Structures are given as structure tokens and as C-alpha cells.
């Protein structure tokens, strides 16, 4: 698993996890009258493959309750996270990643990825994920700076910097039944 951006938070494994609903593709639910405090949300199950990034982009584009700027930010930051999952967290149980976008009136949107990976718990527990729950751990921004890797002939760390700068927080949570990553704008 790669190092994720400084600024992320790692929570300890949680208790019983709510089952992830896997609705039909592109399902979207807007608050009904009298439910104004509830979130608008959209959910989709993505195939855990490189081509799944295209479906992720289409999903974000289809979420009607996002502003254009929110859509752009979630597409960029979420795309980097999805790409990292596909590359570094397999085998993903069930071959899929569920993505859910939600937003309450007057608040900023939240993007969540739900999956099950045998390697994620170890990764989430490591200290290289930047800021952890122990606030005495310093940020590792300088260590996360993008750099050109002459061994592979390309730049590395650009996606991590993008995620950090495009989101307010990134939260990793490994659970007994589901692993989750949350991106808050």
C-alpha cells in the first residue's frame, strides 16, 4: 500500500459495521419533504479494475446535488484514492468497491469508499499515513513532497499532494467486515 497524504486520520478498527447497501447503478436519493436534515446521497458499486476509474468519473459527474467545483474536487481526489486501492490493496473481496457520495443541506459533501482488503488493516495501523489520532505526531508534509524518481523515470507523490490540497480531511478506517476511506471536502 502506498503512503497516503499527510492530513489523513486513521481510526482504530470499529465495532459492528452497517451492511453496505449495493443498489442499482447510479441510484440517487434526494431528501423528501420533511426530511431536510437528512443527507442527499448517491451510491454505486464499481468494478475493482483499472477501467473502474472511468465508471467512478461517470458516477461523480452524475451526482446532481454537487456543485461543479465539488464535483471537480471529488473527481480528482477520489480518483486518486480509487486508483491507489486498485493498484495496492488487492485482492479486493468481491471484486468491487462501493462508493457513496452524501451531502446534508448547508454542509460540504462527503465521499466514502467501502471495500474489503486483507492488507488494509495493516496499512491503516501504520504511522506513515501522516497525521494519526495521536496529535503529537507531526505532519509529514515535507516528506510527502512530489519528487522525480530516476529509477522508474517518472514523478511520484503528485497524487498524494493533490488529495491533501483538494480535501479538508481524509479518514481511513479498517473494520471487521468493511474497510472504509472517507474524503471530506
Amino acid at each position, binding site marked *: 500500500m502506498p503512503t497516503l497524504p499527510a492530513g489523513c486520520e486513521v481510526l482504530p478498527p470499529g465495532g459492528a459495521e452497517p451492511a453496505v447497501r449495493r443498489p442499482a447503478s447510479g441510484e440517487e436519493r434526494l431528501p423528501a419533504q420533511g426530511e431536510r436534515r437528512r443527507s442527499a446521497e448517491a451510491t454505486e458499486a464499481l468494478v475493482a479494475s483499472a477501467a473502474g*476509474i472511468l465508471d467512478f*468519473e461517470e458516477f461523480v459527474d452524475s451526482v446532481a446535488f454537487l456543485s461543479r467545483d465539488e464535483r471537480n474536487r471529488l473527481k480528482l481526489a477520489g480518483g486518486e484514492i480509487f486508483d491507489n486501492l486498485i493498484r495496492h490493496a488487492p485482492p479486493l473481496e468481491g471484486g468491487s468497491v462501493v462508493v457513496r457520495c452524501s451531502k446534508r443541506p448547508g454542509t460540504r459533501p462527503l465521499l466514502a469508499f467501502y471495500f474489503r482488503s486483507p492488507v488494509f488493516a495493516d496499512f491503516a495501523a501504520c504511522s506513515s499515513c501522516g497525521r494519526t489520532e495521536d496529535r503529537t505526531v507531526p505532519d509529514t508534509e515535507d516528506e510527502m513532497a512530489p519528487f522525480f524518481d530516476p529509477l522508474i523515470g517518472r514523478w511520484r507523490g*503528485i497524487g498524494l499532494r493533490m488529495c491533501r490540497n483538494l480535501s479538508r480531511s481524509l479518514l481511513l478506517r479498517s473494520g471487521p467486515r468493511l474497510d472504509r476511506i472517507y474524503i471530506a471536502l
Partner: protein
Amino acid sequence: MTQLDIVEREDGDRYILQVAGPVNSYTYTDLQEKMTKAMAIASTVVVDLEKVTNLSSAGIGVLMAALDDAEAEGKKVVLLKPSEIARLALESTGFAERFPVAESLHSL
């Protein structure tokens, strides 16, 4: 639009790549190949990003590597009319100032 579409054309000593669609981890190799070809042919490579619908770190890495090569070889890489999301992506890396940006071919 889910597929990347790149139209190539020569314009004097400039080589123009009109990029449309998402430049992401699934599609960036197409841009990489065409950038390599363009850099070998022309002294100035113009990358038109007006119709780009996503620009991931993979795509930005291609542009940054091309910019590095151009600087080393006395060539130029110019980004033309970046779309809103392309501009946001570049700014989020902290390297936006490195890229020469033009709003029209005439201003080059």
C-alpha cells in the same frame, strides 16, 4: 465522455495536441506516447486542455516529465486553455507556476 481522444497536428515549428476526455491512470499512456512523439519532432509542443474532463496525477506526471525534458533540450511545452478541472488539478499540485499557459494560439 469516457475515452481519451487526442488529435495531433503540426503548425509550423509547433506541434499541437488537442486532448479531449479524461486523462487518468487508465488513459494517460496515450498522452505519454503522443507527447514523446511530439517532443521528438517539434521545438514547441502545445497541449490543448480545453476539453479535458479529468487530469489525474498520472497525466500531470506526463506533463511534468515533458516539461523537464523540454527545459533540458531548449524546447517549450505550453498548455493551451486548460479546462476548469485541469486548472484545479494543476493548482492542487503546487506546480502550476511551472507550466506556461496560453489562452490562444495567437498569444504564443
